[in-house]
């Protein structure tokens, strides 16, 4: 039996080798697919490599007095969460995207609580039409707001520290008296989360209701989260495992994501399906 089986195995191996060699011959006949089908990130890294060899690559920082790490991160993929929360409390908002019905109560609550000018908005809801199956699309409402990034591009570019990251709770806030109105933070924000308010002659943006609710209620909940009837916006503290926000993104098997992770800005607004 053993001998037979060995012979059988040898025979099978020969067959496989023959088939393999056939495949290689077939493959040789195929035309080159070119680089069009390589994923864009790989293509870009390849190009960067090529430019480095030819000496054209100068890293974007030669003699520049500040580094340009964000640029490089744009081609390197980017982190979402590294499990290290540098602030205490480390405020976050988890968006349960598929619960949103676009009632806009959050938008009204934000505007009335924070006296947001009619010329702009601090938060918005985008309507998405996402392919679900061939010929079928799904309608999803995606609330957006300032992501209070751990590496905020807007803070980095501000020449007068008018916008800054709160050292205690990590909220990206504004000191409107220092704003010179250069709007570089608006150009730098990947989330379109800022606008120039002519009434206060400064940039306005979401601050997780820091001055209107958080300070008074000792960090409980933002106006938009409180107003949401479907519990879409879950505000919480990532250093406190008891908060629903923490549980939503730390439960086993739960898929969560952030917007535009390739920029490596480490946002603190997370999205889950339900």
């Amino acid at each position: 039996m053993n001998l037979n089986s060995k012979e059988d195995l040898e025979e099978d191996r020969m067959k496989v080798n023959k088939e393999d060699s056939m495949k290689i011959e077939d493959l040789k006949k195929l035309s080159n697919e070119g680089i069009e089908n390589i994923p864009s990130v790989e293509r870009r890294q390849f190009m960067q490599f090529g430019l480095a060899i030819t000496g054209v690559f100068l890293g974007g920082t030669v003699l520049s007095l500040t580094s340009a790490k964000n640029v490089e991160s744009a081609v390197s993929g980017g982190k979402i969460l590294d499990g290290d929360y540098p602030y205490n409390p480390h405020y976050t908002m988890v968006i349960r995207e598929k619960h949103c019905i676009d009632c806009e109560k959050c938008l009204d609550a934000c505007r009335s609580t924070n006296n947001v000018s009619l010329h702009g908005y601090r938060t918005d809801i985008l309507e998405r039409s996402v392919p679900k199956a061939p010929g079928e699309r799904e309608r999803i409402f995606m609330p957006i707001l300032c992501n209070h990034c751990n590496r905020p591009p807007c803070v980095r570019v501000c020449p007068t520290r008018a916008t800054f990251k709160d050292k205690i709770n990590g909220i990206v806030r504004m000191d409107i008296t220092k704003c010179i109105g250069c709007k570089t933070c608006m150009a730098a924000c990947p989330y379109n989360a800022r606008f120039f308010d002519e009434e206060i002659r400064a940039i306005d943006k979401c601050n997780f209701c820091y001055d209107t609710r958080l300070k008074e209620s000792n960090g409980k909940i933002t106006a938009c989260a409180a107003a949401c009837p479907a519990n879409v916006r879950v505000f919480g503290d990532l250093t406190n495992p008891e908060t629903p926000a923490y549980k939503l993104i730390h439960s086993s098997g739960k898929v969560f994501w952030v917007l535009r992770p390739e920029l490596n800005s480490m946002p603190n607004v997370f999205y889950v399906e339900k």
Partner: protein
Amino acid sequence: MILEKKIDSKFLTFGPQEMIFVVLAIISVIGLSFGAHALLVGHDNVFGTSREIPWGLLISPYVFFACLSTGLCIVLSLGQIFNIKVFKPIINRTAFLSLVTMATGLLCITIELENPWRVPFFALLSPHPASNIWWKTTIYSLFMIFMVFNLLSLFMKNEKRARIFSIIALITVTLGNLNMNSDMAILGGRGFWSENYMPLYFLTLSTLTGCAAILLFTWVANIFNKETSTEAEDNALRATARLFMFLLFGLLYFTGMKIMGGFYPEFTKNPEAMYLLVQDDFAPNFWIGEVILAVILPLFLVLVSRGRNKGLLAIAGISCLVGTFTLYYHLVIVGQLIPHYFQFNVVDLPQFYSYTPSLHEIMITVGAIFFFLAAFVLGEILFKKINFGK
């Protein structure tokens, strides 16, 4: 005392040259008064900028003039710092042009700010060294001071001291130029500005425009002053034209890279913006401005004139300056037109945002350009009257 000695007795005369200055100054004031109005009523009411496109037309003249100033300072350094004799006859005019172009650039960016009066206070009281803008503003302001001292030293015929100030000015303005591109490159949230070749590109463009301005304004100055240029000046222009031609080939390479990026996405980090620039809405601007006016026509004229026909060189210079202005406009605007959430299948989100400069923005730009022209003419008048450097 020295000033008094050098001032000509005809200092207070008012002739056709002074009249040209007055006309240019009046147009400049009219244009810049739109800036004062914008400051009063708020930019949202009179500018074409928006939440999505926060940087508009006015950033382009700022970048243009600041880079032009850098280029002029680099060309100035060839004669003044590196002692290349052939460039020495154009030192005075180049130094002056470098100063007034920087002043024009800073004027543009000041008007572009919503609260410019806060800059001197908070740039000093609350500086942010991680911000390229803070460095850039500080460096360019220092550059102006060094260049003023350079000019004064040249005027007093103290060449050694002038050379020291020129060296410091060259270092500062080069740092400023590299921060200029980093300022844009760190805005990783937007397409277009993080291309790897940016530092080299900015320095090439700056020096190129510097050469173009020298070719143009030396010719204009000769006509304006009704003078024929000396042989030494002609040699300096020929040397500048050679450098100009060399840099045009450099720009041709970078423009080729852009075209490749526009047609083949694998050659760029910003395929959407490059497509918009090379093949879509901005294509006429790109091919006429960035390709023909900035590179092809000047290169053709320089080659045809062999660096000898000053009129053709001046046309090459103005063509290149107009072309590079369009280039800077594209650099500022096109990257911003890619919607933030374009990859999210958002309903009713346009494929590209749109931006059109408003009347106020156009008039302020015109005002700034005429400010520069008026300053140039004033310089020619004054330097002739006070016998500058002779």
